[in-house]
């Protein structure tokens, strides 16, 4: 068994909502092995987005430990954690989250700036990845000039920019029609299959979960089921 790339150990996350405390995650443990394709499923309010924030090192647990490549993220200096986020992880968000004042190429180049990639290489890489996601002739367009599907493909390209080990996608097809959504999922699957990258996708759509090899069900901040394969999941439901 290879060392997990992301490991959560008895993770609790408590939010203070006015006077009441809300436990978004309650003693959740999880290991994501390199090369896995994991779908995290759950209804809204189940804690799946909180879980994704933990996996993506965007947030710290209230209690428990999160390890990224064997390192406790709370013990990492901020700058190193930021470097890790940019280099090891690639994010895809439901609402694309492109920077509106940058064109497609500049958006894809941005994570490379933070990794100190030289300008010429940045340009070349951004063009290559945008071509890969089928946006060769949209390179210089602003996000406002692109359709939803095109924007999400720019976001995919941005997530691939630093050649990360893990792609973390939060409802990547949530804002797209089914046809475009399918295209996005195929691109992700392709990336996983051809390059062996680890995928973590949060979704509430069981059709999307079909692409995954492992499905994790989450309810009230706890894992209720952890299915080895998608087929097993479908069988059981």
């Amino acid at each position: 068994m290879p060392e997990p790339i992301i490991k959560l150990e008895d993770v609790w996350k408590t939010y203070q909502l006015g006077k009441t405390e809300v436990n978004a995650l309650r003693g959740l443990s999880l290991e994501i092995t390199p090369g896995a394709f994991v779908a995290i499923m759950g209804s809204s309010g189940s804690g799946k987005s909180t879980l994704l924030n933990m996996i993506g090192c965007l947030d710290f647990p209230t209690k428990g430990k999160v390890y990224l490549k064997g390192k406790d993220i709370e013990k990492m200096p901020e700058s190193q954690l930021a470097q890790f986020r940019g280099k090891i992880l690639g994010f895809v968000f439901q609402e694309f989250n492109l920077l509106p004042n940058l064109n497609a190429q500049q958006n894809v180049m941005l994570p490379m700036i933070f990794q100190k990639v030289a300008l010429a290489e940045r340009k070349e890489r951004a063009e290559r990845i945008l071509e890969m996601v089928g946006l060769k002739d949209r390179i210089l367009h602003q996000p406002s000039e692109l359709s939803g599907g095109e924007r999400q493909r720019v976001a995919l390209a941005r997530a691939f920019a630093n050649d990360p080990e893990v792609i973390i996608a939060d409802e990547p097809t949530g804002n797209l029609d089914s046809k475009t959504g399918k295209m996005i999922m195929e691109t992700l699957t392709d990336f996983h299959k051809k390059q062996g990258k680890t995928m973590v996708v949060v979704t509430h759509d069981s059709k999307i979960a079909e692409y995954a090899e492992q499905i994790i069900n989450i309810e009230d901040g706890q894992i209720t089921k952890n299915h080895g394969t998608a087929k097993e999941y479908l069988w059981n439901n």
Partner: protein
Amino acid sequence: MEQLKEYFNISLRNIRTRALRSWLTILGIVIGVFLIISLLSLSEGLKSTINQQLQSLGGEMVMVMPGGDDDIMSAMMFGGSNLQKEDIEAIKKTDGVEQVLSMSYTGTVARYKNEAKNTAICGYDPWKEGLELLSFFQGWSLSGGRWPSKSNEILIGSQLATDIFSKKLTPGSEMVIKGKKFIVAGILNSLGNKQDDSMVYMDMEIYQNITGEKPGTAMYAMAKLIEGADENVVAEDIEKSLKETRKRRSGTDEDDFSVITSEKMGEIANTILGVIQFVIIAFASVAIVVGGIGIMNTMFTSVKERTKEIGIMKAIGATNSAVLQIFLFESGILGFIGGIGGTLLGSALAKGIELYGQVHPLFYFSASITPGLIAFGLLFSFGVGCLAGFFPARTAAKLKPVEALRRFE
């Protein structure tokens, strides 16, 4: 370094995206720096002009004027009791004094070609030697005509010749002052201020004759010292002998005169200018602080608006220091551009006033725009920008990525 350039470019792009607001923020700094640069260069210029004029007075002159020592300003403006004949004699007899030039002036009506205007007339005693002294030490020179040789001949200032009467006065023109006819013998070049340039200059004897001032007295006296004499020592001696003559005359030794060396005059002028400069800097500082608050406000708004953007940048690998630098650059650039604008406008205004002063003899001075002042303006505004941007930038840098991302626009 390479990284800083990247962040700088990102900052520039952010500024361009919010062009209107950026320009308005910059305008706040422009006004502040404009005030500082124009006022400082003008007051510096004023200082050097006054110092130049004082220097032209010569280091070997001592002035005696009516009015107490502690009240020089009002004595200069309103005058006091005249110096008496024995006072002037006492000054002449003081060791170290080579020559004494006494002087009086008053306002009166002068007529030229059926036109009557208010003007000032001034008498000098001795007249002929006095003119030599004045041309040598105060730089009097003629722009036309000749030095007067007869008692009914007068000299006039450059402005009186051209600006006061509707018709120009030329050498040989006839003027009537207090019912007496005078011939303009010569016209002086500008003496550096409007007051001196619109005067009529004549022999003290004639002056006292037409004004009714007691002969032998005078408002002021200028003592030219023997070469090598210490002006401070002579000034003290003059003061002492003046006190004695007054004691003999009135029985009191109350000081109602002041003895001023050119050095002391410079000190007085510098004190006054120092106060003026202080006030100027205080006012300009208020302007720049307001400009700085403008930058801070813009940057805080910008951080609020771009919270999500900051979250995205952090999620894709931006460190706290990267975010801090991007925002600091942004506010620094706003300040710096404001500084350039303010410095340009401020220098232009100062230069404009200087040019106006050159064509117009009303006031004459040079604006002092030094490279130091320009560098100060630019660095200062950049500094104000960075300082004002520091807190907003830190707020931005400290945002947690997850919280920043959660906020929707």
